[in-house]
């Protein structure tokens, strides 16, 4: 945890606050979702079984227009 704190403090000195989430991701501070079972667990915990969220920006499924 100390190591994480040091990293974050150092990262902040880079003076780009709007990139902070990315820094954390780059620094591998956000764990990856590894498998479907774990992913479903996270989804259900966070959004509930009947709730959902839109991926506001996703790739097109098909391109016909």
């Amino acid at each position, binding site marked *: 945890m100390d190591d994480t704190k040091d*990293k974050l403090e*150092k*990262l902040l000195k*880079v*003076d*780009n606050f709007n*990139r902070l989430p*990315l*820094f954390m*991701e*780059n*620094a591998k501070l956000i764990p*990856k*979702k*590894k*498998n*479907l079972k*774990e*992913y*479903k667990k996270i*989804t259900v915990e966070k959004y509930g*079984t*009947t709730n*959902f*969220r*839109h*991926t506001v*920006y*996703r*790739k*097109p*499924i*098909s*391109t*016909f*227009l």
Partner: protein
Amino acid sequence: MNANNQYLTLFANCIPVKGASRSVICDTQHKRVKFIPNSMYDWIQELKSISIEDYQKELNENQIQITNDYIDFIIQNDFGFFCTKEELAWFPEYDGSYESPNEIENAIIDSDDSSNHNYQKIFSQLEQLGCEAIQLRFFDAIKFEQLNKILSHLEQSSIVSIDLALPFSQEWSNEKVKDALNKHPRIFQLTLTSFPATLDPYPNEHRANLVCSSKVIDSNSHCGIIDPKYFRLMKESMIEARDFNNCLNKKISIDVHGTIKNCPTMSESFGNIASTTLEEALNSNGFKTKWFIKKDDIKICQDCEFRYICSDCRAYTQNEDAYGKPLKCNYNPEKMEWKS
């Protein structure tokens, strides 16, 4: 800032891509693309392991001025930042491996008046495969109540994003469209095709995207268009495009006859939904083969600076070559031109 003893590094989500005649920096966070010369792309690659001071040692005055302009461009556009050699190691590039827990990520289900799909069964099988996004394309008119009935199967579903394409009919007034979008918040986009030129397009004021198009979409042959409007600046899809086909990877489709395919336009069949489950089709020989045709393998696309942000089509290709350029792409990366 005196940058001479510093390293300059790009934010990992600002991804440079080199093309035949020019390069781009794709800022996947701020959703913008900036063109840069290929010489600047090469310079960015070299700077990954050398400080600015060391790099400029061997340069003449004119070359130093050019690299200073490059540095200004990177900083002013917020594509990168200065750091020390020690800090440089903290900012690795994305490792480039695309991982997804979903066996299938998106699906297309086509139907016309001759179709007899059991949507409940199809949706249930898609859920089992982890599919989150589906596209329902109707080539013949569909009534509001019919659509409601189909979408009602998804009210408790883990399929969270629905694209709809259906032909305009008198029944589909603006009020009816509003009703449908309010009733089914999972709808991500509703495209009304064959929209009459005599009508003003309905206002796009919903949480879902509403598209009114005069184009007649009466079969799957209209698909496969490559156009900048379909470019997607997402780091996930850029990483995916490096290793996989960014149209077909983790996609499954059912055509109007119930035939299971990679894409409804393709001829290769993996069974019929009436007698084969989607999982069986997915695991059958050859289903995943096309998932691995990546942009770097495709002729002409491999030289295109847009290759990781654009879409792809394997159904219509030049010379019907499995690795041919998409037939409906009008971009020439050598000349940097879109033909109209």
